[in-house]
């Protein structure tokens, strides 16, 4: 080998090393989102969603960065307050996609806000894994970039009806909130109960923001149903629980939909929640992965994640992370990878079909001595159900 060749080889080696070094300190992967920090949506968003984003970015960065096709790059979150306003949600995602030109996005909180972002993610080609948006209407829009992590209303209501049938429940009385989610759940519940030949003895609805449900609950109590189901939102879920206790309405099954999975429900209502059922997916006993997630969350924020959507939000981040590892930050490739593969997550395996998470089954959870135990389906259960529910304490 001549001297000049050796020099050339050295120069090439140096260049390669410099290149590798440049990659090692590559620009961060910028991930943008808008979420409610103020306004009425903030309660849900700050329990189930944004804390997960922050914790995930911190964990990934502490581990040296996000694995982008084998290269480690730091994560930089670009998060804005959407003030619980649809127009601001739209404007902020326009900013993220066209002005900030972020590499990837994370979803806003709630079904309405996700609807509003849908045309933008489709137009600009940003995959979005949504942990707090549910409803067949969203999926019917068929955005190829939209992935819903939560169980759909019909899936959840099927699970409830199966549980009730397994307990040979004969009669159900239910109330629901007049809002997309409440109505969709109500019609799903009716269909599921009919299929199981369980009689609906009463069905009532109430408007959003209701302040008193006692007359309705009195009527339900007078019918003495085996099970009472309240397809309600957080403020009403608290209201229904408190007022049912006040009138000593003690059916064998007491189910309230959204909000029961929040730790604040247990903390605020106290002993009253014992035996109350609701929408949930998991708890720290579900798996070692769930336990690790729970512990990390408590250590970081000094507050517990909720037992439904929080873990779905975490699962969405895990899916994104795995997809980026294989497909890089080419958003089309990330989308295709998410659509075509199965992922290991904190709530078990997840696979999407038509944007719907078809792996996570409908779950019924129940408060038992301070934990929201999964009591249905049997293969996901962390505890046997308390049946009949003990009277309100």
């Amino acid at each position, binding site marked *: 080998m001549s001297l000049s060749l050796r020099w050339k080889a050295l120069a090439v080696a140096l260049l390669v090393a410099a290149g590798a070094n440049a990659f090692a300190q590559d620009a961060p992967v910028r991930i943008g989102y808008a979420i409610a920090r103020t306004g009425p949506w903030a309660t849900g968003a700050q329990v189930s969603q944004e804390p997960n984003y922050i914790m995930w970015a911190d964990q990934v960065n502490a581990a040296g960065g996000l694995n982008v096709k084998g290269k480690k790059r730091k994560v930089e979150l670009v998060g804005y*307050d959407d003030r619980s306003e649809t127009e601001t949600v*739209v404007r902020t995602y326009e900013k993220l996609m066209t*002005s900030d030109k972020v590499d990837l996005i994370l979803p806003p909180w709630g079904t*309405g806000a996700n609807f509003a972002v849908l045309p933008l993610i489709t137009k600009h080609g940003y995959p979005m894994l949504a942990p707090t948006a549910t409803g067949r*209407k969203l999926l019917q829009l068929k955005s190829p970039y939209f992935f819903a992590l939560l169980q759909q209303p019909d899936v959840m209501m099927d699970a409830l009806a199966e549980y009730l049938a397994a307990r040979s429940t004969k009669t159900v009385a239910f109330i629901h909130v*007049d809002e997309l989610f409440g109505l969709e759940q109500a019609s799903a519940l009716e269909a599921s109960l009919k299929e199981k030949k369980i009689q609906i003895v009463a069905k009532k609805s109430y*408007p959003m923001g209701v302040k008193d449900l006692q007359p309705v609950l009195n009527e339900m109590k007078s019918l003495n149903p085996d099970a009472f189901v309240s397809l309600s939102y957080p403020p009403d879920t608290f209201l229904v629980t408190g007022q049912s206790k006040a009138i000593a309405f003690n059916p064998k099954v007491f189910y309230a939909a959204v909000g029961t999975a929040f730790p604040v429900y247990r903390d605020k209502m106290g002993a009253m929640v014992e035996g109350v059922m609701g929408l949930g997916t998991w708890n720290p006993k579900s798996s070692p992965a769930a336990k690790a997630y729970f512990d990390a969350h408590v250590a970081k924020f000094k507050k517990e994640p909720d037992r439904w959507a929080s873990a779905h939000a975490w699962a969405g981040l895990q899916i994104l992370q795995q997809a980026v590892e294989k497909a890089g930050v080419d958003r089309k490739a990330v989308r295709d990878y998410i659509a075509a593969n199965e992922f290991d997550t904190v709530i078990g395996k997840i696979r999407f079909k038509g944007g719907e998470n078809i792996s996570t089954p409908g779950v019924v959870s129940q408060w038992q001595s301070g934990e929201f135990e999964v009591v249905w389906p049997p293969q996901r259960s962390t505890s046997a159900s308390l049946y009949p529910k003990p009277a309100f304490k």
Partner: protein
Amino acid sequence: MTMSGFRERPSRVTIAALATGVLALAVAPWVLNEFLLSLALTCLMYAGLAVSWAMFSGATNYLSLATAAFFGIGAYVTALGYESLTYPVSVFLGGLAASAFAAIVGVAILHLRGAYFAVLTFGLGELVRHAITFVEKKYSGTVGRVLTETPEAATVYLTVLVVALAAVAVCVAVRSSRFGLALAGIGADEQRAQTLGVNTRLVKIGGFALSAFFAGALGAAMAVRWTYIDPPAVFNPFIGFQTVLIAMVGGAQTVAGPLVASIVFSLLTELLRLQFPYLFLIILGTLLILLVLYLPGGIASLWTRKRAGKRDG
């Protein structure tokens, strides 16, 4: 306030500046990126809302909080009719529906004054929200409506621009008309205006309905941006509060005041929201308090005061 504000005639320089401004606004869709365009859209929306609000409430001193109701009615007209009507038609009908609603409730509530009127108009938003929820659930089995195939961003922007400009033009025209003088007369002393032969009842209903038209049309125009329309989202009381705030901060007795304030306020809110994500409401609140304390007549008093000073000297 003095009546001098109503007799001002714009100078040639003002007209030239206005024409340039309108031209600049009209070409925005081809110059600005998507985000800046929607920021401009927000400014225009609040400009239209605040100017039309001031046209009635500023002149008559009837503090209306019904803007959210009118805006929501317009939005719902789009939600219901967009598939069968074209976009401009739904915008126009949205305005008409809000106007008709304002005229009907105006007959019932415009004899109230002060806090009673304010509280009642605030209740209108809730009333319409629950009424729509009830009707929708009863007859269509759902409460939310999904809009697909929505118009381009440029189309929405230009439509909102046209509505906002129309609001400004109508407001300017009204102020120099007998109708406008009657509205101002009601604001100064309703009893006196009545004694002097003004049909205050009719004038108030007319003014209320006219100002509602623009709020309704703007609601109808903006609704297509949200894909999913349900009552809690479109009957957002925040929109009503913000409109009143902007008009007050700008100077509700003028046209230029609310106009300037809507731009300043929208841009400032956005800047603070993006730059100080956790502090923006505190900063915004402090700024508003300072403004009210040191500029009680609104931003408009900056130039009306100066002009008055010149005249005196």
